[in-house]
């Protein structure tokens, strides 16, 4: 699962969705892999304002990535900073969690990721 995906997902349990504790989910015992994907400036520039930057910073630091800028760079800043553009492309679109789990800090439920596929199906008692 791409790290960008994590920025748009929360706990699937109904009573968790409205709580702030359920987002972002916290990666646990995760194995990361990196793909090579051709970068698309149009896509990345336009995704930036749609990101929850604080959630992204949390995810990045929990996975051991060096500190992100305190706020989302503007399109102009990104155009002027090739390294930052490249780093963000790698972090958001090339880095995947291949194995591990995602934990909800509100209910404690843990969602498994196997072979890169995250499973959000709930056990009966949580539906």
């Amino acid at each position, binding site marked *: 699962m791409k790290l*960008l995906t994590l920025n748009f997902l929360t706990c*699937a349990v109904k009573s968790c969705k409205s709580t702030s504790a359920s987002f972002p989910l916290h990666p646990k015992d995760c194995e990361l892999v990196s793909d090579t994907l051709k970068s698309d400036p149009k*896509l990345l520039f336009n*995704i*930036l304002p749609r990101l929850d930057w604080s959630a992204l910073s949390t995810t990045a630091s929990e996975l051991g990535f060096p500190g992100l800028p305190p706020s989302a760079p503007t399109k102009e800043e990104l155009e002027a900073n090739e390294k930052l553009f490249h780093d963000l492309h790698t972090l958001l679109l090339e880095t995947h969690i291949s194995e591990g789990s995602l934990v909800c800090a509100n209910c404690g439920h843990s969602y498994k990721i196997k072979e890169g*596929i*995250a499973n959000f*199906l709930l056990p009966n008692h949580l539906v």
Partner: protein
Amino acid sequence: MSTIDVVEVQPPALWEAKRTKQRTVVWQEFGLLGIFTDQKPKIKQDGICSQQLLSTTEKSGVMDSVGVPGPEEYEEQHVHEVYEQIASHFSSTRYKPWPIVESFLQSLVPGAIGLDVGCGNGKYLTVNREVFIVGSDRSTNLVKIASQHQPHAAIVADTLSLPHQAGRFDFAISIAVVHHLSTPERRKEAVQEILRCLNAEGKALLYVWALEQKTSRRGWDEGHEQDVMVPWVMKTGKKNPNEDGSMEKTFQRYYHLYRSGELEADIAAVGGKLIDSGYEKDNWWAIFQR
């Protein structure tokens, strides 16, 4: 050409029927799904293709009078398990996007974030690579195929319990999915779950199978039963023949066929605002927002 059983479940809607023993109409017809021929189904003048009545337990084991399953279990058996089993075969046959879906996806601005509920093999993830779609499906096998379509993502999730965060999405599509839910409440809940994910300007496109399709090879039309079982015929290949030596396997999938106006009514019932709607080749579609 082969002979295929089609099983139809009688109205009223399955679960409101007090879970009494259901009768099932079984008939045979040629050339349904999978193995296409140009032959039309045999339809009696009243539009119902019944030839014989059998109890469900006798014929298909769908339900029995003692342990009647709830909608979740029913869909598990008659939708999810089927897709899981036919994933690779299904995948090789689903490649052409519907025109309405294609133009909806191509109208999006670059960087738009979307969800594709019931994305299957990710057929629609190939249409626009300048947006980011988080597809979801119940079938792990289909999600594995869908997740290969860059730059998008795909996860395993239930249509009624999506992990997509509320209000974050610019668009949503759900194509040929909601008609697999087996009660009116669950079909509305699915629309509501999609609405929840959209932001204030976000738009969703829903696409469901129509009851009114008398020119199709299935021949259903107004007045026909809306809750039906539709066979999917899969060739097993020479390596895995059935015990009797035949090389085809038939899976039955549950569908609710929408009648004219029903999709729009469901959207309105959960507070959605209709933007546009219409009919495209045996399907009803609607675009709506919060």
